[in-house]
């Protein structure tokens, strides 16, 4: 009997199979939407492991999101049970954190470092850093965080920062010096707190791979590297890869679609794909067949994307694999409305009239978050449940933010910054007057931790349920009568009693998903390790069953739905105002066009495009992308119709 892997391999197309079984040297797989790239990646990982049951090397697969990593891991486990241990599938940031935990000591990083993923945390670090240096600092120094981040994202170290900036036009010596100084203080402060921000994870790992022996070690251990969504790799991530590969490593397997590059604003670049091909001597395999979208949509996407003049001309256009199983006209529809309000109301009522079973396979996509918010309201009025899919860097309820702060405090008892968060979040769901300075003074005087003092003070405060019970659990924890795991369990139990707090419900659902994800990824984790993982992952809740999904175009990357609505297809929204200003041939506009391409190619069955003549009272023109996709303006009815020409 064929194994699961064998039968899965058997189902692959000849070209997919060629990629999966690629033997020697680096390979770039240009994979259009719906071409089965995830399947190719997972089959390749599984197949590499399956072919070498007696070997010990590992396979490294780097993904763009934790969700993708999680999904890929579980598929690999299904395909090659027992061998999955040798597959290391995670995000760039997760991988760097792992490298730094094991080898960070060379850079003075202790393995239990904290990860600061939130802007507010980093801002607080900067302010502490500046305050330590000078009590009366000019306010504008506080606003330097974006510039510091930009330096780090370009892998410019503190020693080189001033010179680097001075070499760029429009930066004065004095200004460069000021930023460089703030940068150095910020880095010192991070190190003092044994913390790393997101950029540090990449940058510090990059520094480690500057030692050839370190790079060699990773080349040996990971004989094959796979990179998902390569088109969205930014400069720092790519340089990291290059350093890790040293001079001779040529076993990179990258999957990319330059037509789906939508992260140029974050340092991704369509040109990076050709750099990769050159640097790693990649052979190129194209997967043009689109197994996801109906023929009409494939056609519209092809028409759209050729308008991008920067596009690699050698790249094949997509071919539909589906037979038209739905009536041609039903594959794409376009709706026109008078105003934005009419648009969301109209779409909402259309969704409401759909079969309820279809709702969880339906998504509404928009260029901006604001449009999604009004879409959600409109759906609410139609009593259609909806969830906005978005990355959440933090929990939204004060209760869960407080709980996380407690766990961090246990891990790092001297963290003052976190203690302030702990006090503030608690008082916002359970009013209690408490002076933080007072608390810290008491802690110093009594020689006990901040958290113990806090638990003490909270116990004597006049609290109501469930705060009283929650505080009791923390007291048990600080007194050492309880382990963190059981305290968490108790506290979550108390928090679940509140049925009406939507934010809390979201967070509890997210917590449940995250703790099970983390358990799958790393098993039973120590507290510091758990917190590191938690910090790296998005805290969005599990979508409610039967809810319609709402997503920005960026948030929809890598997803697919039976029924897709793309709303707000007008000039200055999609494409954005900013890109319209830059002009039609601009890189910014091309990125918008790719955004539209990504949006429509999420569709498995039906695509509904919509636009309105007015948004927030401003008159708008239909998006040029509608025309490019082949819709012509029918003046008499004010609506757009599918073109008939082929």
């Amino acid at each position, binding site marked *: 009997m064929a194994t699961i892997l064998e039968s899965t391999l058997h189902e692959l197309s000849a070209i997919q199979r060629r990629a999966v079984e690629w033997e020697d040297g680096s390979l770039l797989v240009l994979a259009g939407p719906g071409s089965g790239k995830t399947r190719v990646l997972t089959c390749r990982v599984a197949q590499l492991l399956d072919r070498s049951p007696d070997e010990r090397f590992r396979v490294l697969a780097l993904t763009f999101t934790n969700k993708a990593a999680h999904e890929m891991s579980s598929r690999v486990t299904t395909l090659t049970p027992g061998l999955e241990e040798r597959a290391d599938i995670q995000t760039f940031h997760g991988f760097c954190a792992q490298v730094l935990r*094991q080898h960070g000591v060379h850079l003075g990083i202790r*393995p239990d470092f904290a990860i600061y993923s939130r802007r507010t945390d980093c801002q607080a670090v900067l302010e502490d850093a500046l305050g330590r240096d000078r009590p009366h600092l000019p306010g504008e120094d506080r606003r330097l965080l974006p510039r510091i981040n930009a330096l780090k994202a370009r892998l410019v170290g503190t020693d080189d920062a001033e010179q680097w900036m001075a070499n760029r036009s429009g930066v004065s010596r004095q200004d460069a010096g000021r930023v460089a100084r703030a940068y150095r203080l910020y880095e010192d402060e991070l190190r003092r707190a044994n913390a790393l921000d997101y950029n540090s994870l990449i940058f510090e790992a990059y520094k480690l791979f500057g030692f050839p022996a370190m790079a060699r070690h990773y080349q040996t251990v990971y004989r094959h590297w796979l990179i998902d969504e390569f088109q969205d790799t930014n400069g720092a991530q790519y340089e990291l890869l290059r350093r890790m590969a040293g001079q001779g490593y040529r076993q990179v397997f990258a999957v990319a679609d330059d037509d789906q590059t939508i992260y140029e604003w974050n340092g991704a670049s369509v040109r990076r794909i050709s750099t990769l091909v050159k640097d790693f001597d990649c052979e190129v395999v194209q997967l043009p067949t689109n197994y996801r979208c109906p023929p009409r949509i494939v056609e519209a996407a092809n028409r759209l994307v050729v308008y991008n003049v920067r596009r690699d001309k050698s790249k094949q256009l997509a071919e539909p694999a589906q037979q038209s199983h739905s009536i041609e006209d039903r594959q794409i529809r376009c709706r026109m409305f008078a105003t934005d309000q009419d648009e969301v109301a109209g779409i909402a009522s259309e969704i409401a009239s759909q079969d309820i079973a279809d709702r969880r396979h339906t998504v509404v996509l928009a260029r901006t978050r604001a449009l999604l918010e009004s879409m959600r309201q409109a759906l609410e009025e139609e009593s259609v449940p909806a969830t906005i899919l978005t990355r959440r860097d933090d929990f939204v309820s004060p209760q869960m933010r407080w709980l996380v702060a407690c766990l961090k405090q246990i891990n790092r008892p001297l963290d003052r910054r976190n203690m302030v968060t702990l006090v503030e979040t608690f008082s916002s769901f359970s009013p209690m007057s408490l002076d933080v300075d007072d608390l810290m003074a008491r802690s110093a005087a009594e020689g006990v931790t901040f958290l113990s003092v806090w638990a003490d003070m909270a116990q004597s405060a006049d609290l109501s349920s469930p705060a009283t019970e929650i505080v009791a659990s923390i007291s048990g924890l600080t007194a050492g009568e309880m382990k963190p795991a059981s305290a968490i369990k108790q506290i979550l139990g108390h928090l679940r009693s509140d049925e009406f707090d939507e934010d809390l419900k979201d967070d509890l659902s997210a917590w449940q998903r995250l703790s099970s994800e983390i358990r799958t990824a790393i098993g039973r984790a120590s507290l510091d390790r758990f917190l590191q993982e938690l910090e790296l992952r998005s805290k969005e809740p599990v979508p409610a069953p039967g809810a319609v999904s709402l997503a920005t175009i960026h948030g929809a990357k890598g997803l697919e739905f039976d029924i897709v609505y793309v709303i707000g297809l007008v000039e200055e929204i999609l494409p954005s105002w900013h890109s319209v200003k830059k002009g039609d041939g601009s890189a910014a506009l091309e990125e918008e066009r790719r955004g539209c391409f990504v949006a429509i190619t999420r569709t498995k069955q039906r695509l509904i495009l919509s636009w309105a003549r007015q948004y927030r009272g401003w008159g708008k023109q239909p998006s040029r992308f509608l025309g490019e996709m082949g819709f012509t303006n029918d003046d008499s009815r004010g609506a757009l119709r599918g073109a008939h020409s082929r």
Partner: protein
Amino acid sequence: MRITRLEISNFRSIRHMAIDLSDTTVFVGPNNAGKTAILDALRIALTRRWGQRGTGFSEYDIHLPDDTADPKTSSGVSIELRSDESELGEWPDPVAEDLGDIIQIDLATGRRTIALRTRCAWSEDTGAFEPIWEFLDAKRDPLAGRSARRVNLERFWRYLPVFYLGALRDVSDEFSPRSSQFWRRLLRALEIPSELESRALRVLDLLNRRLLKADPRLEVIANTLSGATRIAARDREGGLAMRMVPLKSWDLLSRAEIILRNEPDLPWLPLRRQGQGIQSLSVIFLFQAFVDHLLRELYETGSKPLLALEEPETHLHPQAVRTLWRHVSGLPGQKIVTTHSPFFVQHVPFRDLRLVRLTPNGTEVRSLPASYSASIPALDGLDRIVAGSGEFLTYESASETLTVRGALDKSTYRALLACCGRDGRRTEVEQRLRDLRQRSSLYIDDGELQALDTHARRIRGEIFFAERWLIVEGQTDYLLVHAIAHALDYDLDQHSVSVIDAQNNGDPATFAALARALDVPWLAVFDGDDAGKGMKRAIANRGFSDEELKERCQTHAAGDLEAQLVADGLEPELRDVLVASGIPDASQLAGDSLADRLRKNKTAYAAELAARVRQDADMARRAPQAFRTAIEQLRGLV
């Protein structure tokens, strides 16, 4: 892959010790000094011994400073071991791949390292002594995350399987098909082609039946015995048969035994009928056979066995023991050996020897290392000094370890001190550098050890078993000082004093330096002539203080030994000795001419004189003062 360093704290008789291990490391020391504790510490760290109920760790394993100490309040046992790549790429790729999560990298040399710490302390939570295994990063802090997963430990163990051959190697255990760690597995691994197997079984079955028919009484016996099955019978009828030969292939194989004969005319005898020496030796070779044929199959490609071998010399003739070193050091994998045999030690390279001793501070180990290390922070300018030193100094920045290969000379030492300039920890760092210089001053270079190897092979076995050394010039002094000491009721052999006649064994200064490095208490007695004074000067040049020199080195006031004997008023006895040695005209000699004649007949008179002094305490009390002082000092010397 092998263990390169072992650090043990609070384990049995060991308070703290750190030792380097080579391919074959030989531990020498008196009974109860702690040799077995060292082997056991290694085995515990590399096996599951602490994890298992019943066989595990007990409170007696925790080192206690005194009788009243409570093991539950001790900070607990710590056993830390390191495995370093001896050269770039020593570890095969599969090893590096499999152990990727726990490998650390020396960024300066690119060499890979794994460090494992095993701890065991009383846990209030569980009410037991709880063992913990943790891999360490380059700074010796525990690794976290993936690296801390238990699976890494299991894997690491598979690459370093430990085998233990105790001093009491019993052939009937080691060649038992049921309990032996090697023999059983070797037999089990045998692959008999199925065709041959079934044919053999058919033949045996036939044989069995014929044997049973050979004597009719057998059938009667079988019938009688089958009564048992009838009494215990249930519904269905049982049966009973007799088996004269093995009828299953494992029964057959498990009866395999070794027979041998030493000479062609002697009868073949099973191993357990052989002499103890052959039995003991055969177990060692059994280990080799096991490693050669089965290790790869049972463990991993790249697994290297670690053999803890106690007293390989057991029951063997000295001549056999002498050749044993070559066999033992040639065994596959890493060997940790303990021995009580000077004949074995004779051939062990100096740097591979470890002297184990029980001191008021617990078990301590001395050796002759090729380098010395100290923990020194990354001082400004340190890199420059290291870079300018050639290979003499190396610095590992993650663990902040400065290593010096040889004795730290004054100018390098000064340059290092100058680096401490403005550093906040100045006093502490200076102290460490001072200590490093002090320790490294004990360094003995390869050339000198090689010379010692050439000249002192005869005595180098035994001196490592002595507790004190007395360095004298020649054979005459050797004989005489033994006799005097015996007569004065301080027998040198009995008190474990090794008398080293330096002239026949190379350079006396080397022995003094060796004694200092190995922490062996020593004294020296030389002639008062130019040669003797030269020896004393040579010792002084090894960096001994005047004070120490005065305390340890005696010289004969009257010149050489013969002059001193004459000056000590032993003329009549000396004349008698010469006459008795077959030199009749000596009876007329006196003064310088007597001394001259003695010098010409050194061997003859020395033996005779020594024999007389040995019997005559009165005469011994008139023997040269320098000898008597030394003997007196030896009594309390530690």
